[in-house]
């Protein structure tokens, strides 16, 4: 009797401490989850906060005199007339006239406010509307990246630490006061390739490069991955060779991606002497990298098809190949597609192997096919993040937002496919 009482006393004595331990343990769990989630939130707010301004660019309103004599256009019908025309000079004269500058040094400082790309945009616009020639018109012209950084910092009240002189700032304040500065949607960002000038740099080239790379990856890795999965699930005899293949696939799935880059460099570029920087080689390397993922998910999808379906097909006289082609594969297809999309999302975000095979080149032209030199979106992000110009920070963040947007769409598609098409048996 006394010993039983002492046991319950012991338990009761410790109970409060044990409950506190329980609470603490639970709290650690909640804190861990919250830590993970807050990292996610901080990451996204940081990127979005830095990048949302990258989608707009600052423009300066100027009345440009487009007299054909000054431009050097004798006959607008001649093919190269606009190519050699001096639109840059016209813009400069308009700038000097607007701000009454005559001093040579001041002129140079003033020229730095307008992007070097503005004259090309103006040229293209006049080429499209030749009736603008020989008269004065107002145009919104792209400002230099320093102006862009300054103008965007005016609203946000964060201190401006750019490379503008006091004189330049005074001019800009004059323009701003009279409403001749504005921010507009940055179409250059979505339509052009890379550039040394931040305000002229766009992600279209990199996006196309990524598209071609992922296309090659998809076209190669999906059929090969599915075929390998079918072999391993339906055909492979249980022997050491099959075991070896299985162990291999599982190990390859965890090999660092940079090793695949080394493989691509040694095999495709050094041995087969393929050109560097092309999406075809990038696609080949990423194919080898994503194959294990696709094989593993395809095997899971094939495994999920119940054996009764196979037995029914075989029982009705189908051959093994017919059973696989007509019954197992169509039923497993949603699962395999989901796996393939997730594999492609992985390939789209991959950077390191592409660095190895030289897809870090500075490419201004938009690539037109798998054999053109190109970069990829993540590589472009890496290149911009390394650039010293401050204005590239917001471009980088904006490019990251675009990349994350694509990844989000692909994953959403995968989830939708799974919800929509997958059957539970």
């Amino acid at each position, binding site marked *: 009797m006394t010993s039983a009482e002492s046991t319950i006393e012991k*338990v009761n004595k410790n109970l409060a401490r044990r409950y506190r*331990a*329980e609470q603490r*343990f*639970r709290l*650690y*769990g909640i804190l*861990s*989850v919250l*830590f*993970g989630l807050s*990292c*996610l939130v901080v990451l996204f707010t*940081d*990127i979005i906060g830095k990048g949302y301004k990258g989608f707009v660019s600052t423009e300066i309103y100027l009345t440009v005199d487009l007299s054909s004599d000054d431009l050097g256009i004798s006959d607008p019908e001649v093919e190269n007339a606009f190519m050699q025309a001096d639109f840059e000079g016209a813009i400069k004269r308009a700038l000097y006239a607007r701000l009454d500058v005559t001093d040579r040094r001041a002129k140079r400082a003033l020229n730095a406010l307008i992007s070097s790309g503005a004259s090309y945009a103006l040229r293209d616009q006049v080429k499209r509307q030749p009736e603008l020639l020989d008269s004065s018109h107002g145009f919104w012209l792209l400002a230099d990246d320093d102006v862009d950084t300054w103008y965007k910092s005016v609203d946000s009240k964060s201190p401006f630490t750019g490379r503008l002189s006091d004189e330049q700032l005074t001019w800009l304040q004059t323009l701003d006061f009279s409403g001749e500065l504005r921010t507009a949607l940055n179409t250059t960002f979505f339509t052009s390739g890379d550039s040394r000038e931040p305000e002229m740099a766009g992600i279209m080239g990199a996006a196309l490069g990524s598209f071609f790379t992922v296309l090659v990856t998809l076209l190669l890795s999906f*059929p090969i*991955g599915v075929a*390998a999965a079918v*072999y391993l699930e339906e*055909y492979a005899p249980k022997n050491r060779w099959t075991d070896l*293949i299985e162990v*291999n*696939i*599982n*190990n*390859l799935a*965890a*090999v*660092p*991606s*940079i*090793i*695949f880059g*080394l*493989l691509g460099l*040694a*095999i495709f570029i050094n041995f087969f*002497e393929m050109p560097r920087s092309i999406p075809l080689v990038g696609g080949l390397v990423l194919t*080898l990298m994503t*194959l*294990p993922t696709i094989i593993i998910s395809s095997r899971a999808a094939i495994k999920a098809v119940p054996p009764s379906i196979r037995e029914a097909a075989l029982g009705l006289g189908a*051959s*093994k*190949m017919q059973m696989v082609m007509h019954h197992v594969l169509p039923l497993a297809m949603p699962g395999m597609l989901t796996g393939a999309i997730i594999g492609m999302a992985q390939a789209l*975000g*991959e950077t*390191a192997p592409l660095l*190895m095979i030289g897809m*870090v080149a500075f490419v201004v032209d938009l690539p037109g096919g798998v054999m053109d030199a190109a970069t990829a979106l*993540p*590589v472009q*992000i*890496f290149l911009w*993040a*390394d650039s010293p110009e401050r204005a590239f*920070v917001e471009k980088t963040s904006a490019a*990251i937002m675009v*990349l*994350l947007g694509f*990844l989000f769409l692909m994953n959403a598609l995968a989830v939708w496919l799974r919800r929509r098409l997958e059957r539970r048996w």
Partner: protein
Amino acid sequence: MLQSQSIGGASSLASLPFYYGMLTALWCALPALVVLGVWQLFDANLIEWFVIAKLSADAQALPADELGLLLNTVSNIAQGHLSSDGQPAELLAAAESLTAIQTTNRLAATGVVLSLGILGLMFGWSKVAPQLRARQKVETVFSWFLLACSCLAILTTVGIVLSVLFESLQFFRSVSPFEFLFGTQWSPQMAMRADQVGSSGAFGSVPLFAGTMLISLIAMVVAVPVGLMAAIYLAEYAHRQVRAVVKPLLEILAGIPTVVYGFFAALTVAPVIRDLGLSFGLATSSESALAAGLVMGVMIIPFVSSLADDVISAVPQSLRDGSLALGATQSETIKQVVLPAALPGVVGGVLLAASRAIGETMIVVMAAGLAAKLTANPLESVTTVTVQIVTLLVGDQEFDSPKTLAAFALGLMLFVTTLALNFVALHVVKKYREQYD
């Protein structure tokens, strides 16, 4: 079909008509494709050989690299990239013959492949007969194709091992493996001139591995407790609806491209850590190992948590029930019953996460330093194996300098390390799974 009708309809064929067509198509396409592939592999060498034969004996006696330069000039003239004015007559003649050979080569390739296709087609066509077991033959071909696809995984591994090993052996011919493995100096710049200062070229990989270990260790210190506790909370405590929302959210962290983490580490986390360190009066590098390690840890959290979640969920409910019935609190059950039972799986998951951290490239390339230093201070800048591979190989490089080859030797070490970790991890996980399934 005509033949089948003469003997009594499609039902008396050995296979469905589709398979006869398929077999004929295979006969048409396969031999032609194989020949085309082999042709493509060898024609460049053959053409080069022909052009060299056209050059004078002097040119043929040149060393390999100068001959290559000469051939390059020839092909540039032939393609019109280089103006033919002022070039030696010999080269012009060679360029002309190169153009001629290339045209012949293209025509010959097209001719051979087409005629092979037609021959194959005719052969396949002639074999078509009601008794022919076409389906079996087609299926044999397809099953070989399936086998070949599954062997690609092995080929990839062999390719990795061979390519990395081959270049590494070349590297070890100029640098002793002993110096590479145990040397504590890393400065891969090779001297351009003999008297150049500070470019001796030292290839001791110890500082690189120390840096890799330091950053990975910081990452694991963040990821393992957080990931494990998050997995425990989600698997044992959280309401089903909470779990359904939080788990995918956490897994977003694993889906974010590493280059994004690198940008975040370099531009946001590193300055914060530097300012914090300076405000405490500590000398902090702006490329501190801590910044890269912390961000890498955040990236790895979902790997640890989802693997741990899987093994914790696999622990049979009866174990928990038994422990709870004896009066243990939930946390005591988890700590003393569930975790020990799940331990092998958790260890496997942690090892996999460690191998992921060691092989991670973009975060460290963007946020860690380049100078190889032997230090255990997380506030200093260190460099890692992957950073060095990238810096050695990005840009143009030739394949015979020790600098380039050193990258492959580092790659070999990295591959062996991660492979060993993965192998142990997969083995541990597999062995554990067999106990409860």
